[in-house]
């Protein structure tokens, strides 16, 4: 993955943790480590603006919606709505956005409706409801993923882990760039 940093030497570099997200007007490489959490990348090719989040839970509880201080990026639904609002303020329309969906591994689960699967379901359903095209997805499975997003090109580089370690430990890992 370090070759990607070499390919884009002038890009700003950010390591994104859980419940974090970014709207990126300037060329940036964002790295993160996903287990059952979800990252959705957004890219507007015309304006070369990108956005990404790393959410851990599917839906923001009603009680939290009423709070003055809340973290939108903790939840899949509020992350997507917040990013689309922010992109809209920059003049980006839904039809100009290309999304990609990653994560949702069933790392600690025997299958069925695992937390990872629920996160992905919420992500793809909200994106469809808001008419955002999902260009590509790489989700599910039993292993975590290292991910790097290039904000101005929309490229996403993924490396799937060789073993299925514990999700929460995976997602606290050091930067992969």
């Amino acid at each position: 993955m370090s070759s990607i940093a070499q390919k884009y030497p002038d890009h700003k570099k950010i390591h994104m943790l859980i419940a974090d997200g970014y709207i990126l007007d300037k060329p940036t490489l964002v790295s993160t480590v996903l287990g059952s959490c979800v990252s959705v990348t957004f890219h507007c090719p015309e304006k070369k603006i990108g956005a990404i989040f790393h959410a851990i839970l599917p839906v923001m509880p009603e009680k939290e919606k009423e709070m003055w201080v809340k973290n939108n990026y903790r939840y899949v639904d509020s992350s997507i709505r917040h990013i689309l609002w922010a992109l809209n303020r920059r003049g980006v329309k839904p039809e100009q956005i290309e999304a990609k969906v990653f994560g949702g591994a069933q790392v600690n689960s025997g299958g069925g409706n695992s937390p990872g699967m629920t996160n992905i379901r919420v992500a793809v359903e909200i994106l469809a409801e808001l008419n955002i095209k999902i260009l590509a997805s790489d989700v599910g499975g039993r292993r975590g993923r290292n991910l790097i997003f290039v904000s101005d090109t929309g490229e996403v580089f993924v490396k799937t882990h060789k073993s299925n370690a514990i999700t929460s430990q995976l997602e606290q890992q050091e930067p992969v760039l």
Partner: protein
Amino acid sequence: MLKILIVDDSKSAQLKIHSILSQYGLCDQAYNGVEALEYFQVALAGNDLYDLVVMDIVMPKMNGIEAAKEIIKIQDRHNIPDAKRTHIIMLTGKTDPAHLMQAHFEAGVSAYLTKPFEDKTLIEAMNNMGLIEL
């Protein structure tokens, strides 16, 4: 060189996918899920599995999701180790959440790409599976 199987009932889609993938390996072409399984069984019998299957969903005789499930089941039955397993990319015009969820969580495909698509999206998915290096 990779060993690749392209499965799509549209000749124009076959041509486009072949034009992208032929630089990375040898491509066989099937036009529905039943044919895809026949190709896969022959590869299995020769102990020379495909590195990659790129498959549409909507096809006659057997759809892509059913074919993907079968390919994964066959590999499970034969205890094919992870490193040798065939990667499956679903490449489809179906953009609804239900098909995406079914392909990933029921069939177990590695990636789901939607048509119309650009060459770079398919190449990026192959890179992310470790089949090529960008």
